[in-house]
C-alpha cells in the first residue's frame, strides 16, 4: 500500500458551545473551497461536519474537531476528526440506523453523514469517549488503484 503523503496543515477547534459549531462550519467550508471542492461537495462535507460536531457537543458533552488538509496521491482533500470524552458509542450499528436517537432527534445525523462523505469511521478509543472521522476528496482519482 502506498502511504498517503499528507501535507501538515492542521486546525484544532474546540467544541464547547453552539457558537463553536458555526466556526467549524465556516472553517470546513473555506478549507474545502481552497482544496477545490465544488459547491455540492462543499455543502455535503459541511453538513456532515455540522452533524458530527453537534453530536460531539450534545452526546459527547463537548470535545474538539481536528481539520486536516490532505494533499496525497488522491488529490486535495479534507479529513475531519471529532473527539470527545463522553460515554462513547457502544453499539455502532444501532447508532448508524436511520431514525435511531437517544436524544429525541431525528436520528439521521450519523447514518446521513456516512452517506455524505467518502471515508467514515467510528471508534471508541481505549482512553474513552467517541472518535468519528470523515474525509472527502475534491476529485476521484482512480489512478491510485492504477493500471
Amino acid at each position: 500500500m502506498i502511504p498517503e503523503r499528507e501535507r501538515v496543515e492542521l486546525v484544532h477547534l474546540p467544541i464547547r458551545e453552539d457558537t463553536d459549531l458555526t466556526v467549524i462550519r465556516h472553517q470546513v467550508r473555506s478549507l474545502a473551497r481552497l482544496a477545490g471542492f465544488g459547491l455540492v461537495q462543499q455543502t455535503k462535507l459541511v453538513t456532515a461536519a455540522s452533524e458530527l460536531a453537534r453530536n460531539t457537543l450534545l452526546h459527547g458533552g463537548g470535545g474538539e474537531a481536528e481539520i486536516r488538509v490532505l494533499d496525497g496521491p488522491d488529490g486535495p482533500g479534507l479529513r475531519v476528526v471529532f473527539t470527545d470524552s463522553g460515554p462513547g458509542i457502544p453499539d455502532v450499528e444501532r447508532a448508524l440506523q436511520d431514525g435511531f436517537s437517544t436524544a429525541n432527534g431525528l436520528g439521521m445525523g450519523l447514518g446521513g453523514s456516512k452517506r455524505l462523505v467518502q471515508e467514515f469511521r467510528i471508534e471508541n478509543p481505549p482512553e474513552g469517549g467517541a472518535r468519528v472521522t470523515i474525509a472527502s476528496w475534491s476529485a476521484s482519482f482512480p489512478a491510485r488503484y492504477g493500471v
Partner: protein
Amino acid sequence: MIDGPPDSGLSSTEALSAFLRRRTEQIAQRWADLPLFQAVFTVTRDEAVEACQAVLSCLVEVAESGRLEDLEAPGFLPARRQLVAMTASRSRSGLSIAQVDREFGVLRDAVLDMLAADSSGAAPEESARLRLLLVTLFGTLRVVVVETMLQENQEIVQRQRQQLLEMATPVVKLWDRLVAVPLIGMLDSARSQVVMENLLEAIVEHNADIAILDITGVPTVDSLVAQHLMKTVASARLMGAECVISGIRPAIAQTMVQLGLDLGHVTTRATLADALEWALERRRRRERDSRIPE
C-alpha cells in the same frame, strides 16, 4: 490574618484601613486631579472628589475585612457601579481596556507617596508591610476594574446578538393574509425559536392562512435545521396557516436527500416568486370553488 508588630496593637490590615480612612480627604483631592477622574468628571471638581471618596470608602471596607486579594470581597460591590460608569466613559473616549487599566494603576502611586510621607517616623519593617498590603489591595482593584470592563463588553455583545437575532428574522406581509419569512443565516436552536415565535405572532396579527418560509439565505440544512423547520410548519398549521418552503438551493437539495431528510408533506418551491405564485393560485382556486354551489 497577618499579625502586626506587638507594640502597635493593630493588625496590619487594620493599620492599612486606618491609614486610608485618616487620609481619605487628601487622597481624594490628589486623585481628583489625575487624568482618569478629570476626564470622566468634566462638570465640576467636587463631583470628581466625591467619586474618589466613594472608591476610597470601598477600599477601606475591603481593608477592614482583611480580604485584600479577594475579588469577591463585599467591599468592592458598591464600587462596581461607579467603576462601570467610569470605565464606560473612558471606553467611549476610545481608550482600550489596557489603557484604562493603566490609568487605574496610577491611583496607587499617589497613595504610596502619601504613605511614605506618613510613616517617615515608623519602623521600616512596619511601613514595608503596609506598602505591600497597599500594593496588593490596588492590584486587586485593577483586576476588579478589568473584570468589570470585560463583563460590560460581554453584555453589549449579548445584547447585540439578541437584536441581530430579531432583526434577521422579520416577517413580512406579502399579500392579504399571506406572510413570508426570508430566513438568513444558520438556523440554530435560538434562532429557530425566535423565527417560530415571530411567525406565529404574524399569522395571528394578519390572520394569515398561508406562510412562506424562504431559506435561500440558510447556508446549511442539517438534521437539526430540518427538524426546526418541520416543527415551525406544524405549529403554523395548528394556527390555521399552511406553509410553503422556498429557496432550497440545488446543492442543499442533493445534500438533504443523501442525508435522508424528508420534509414530509410540506409544499416546497424553488424560489420565493414560485411560492408566491403557488399561494395566489391556490387562493384563486379556493375562492372560485366557494362560489360554485355544489
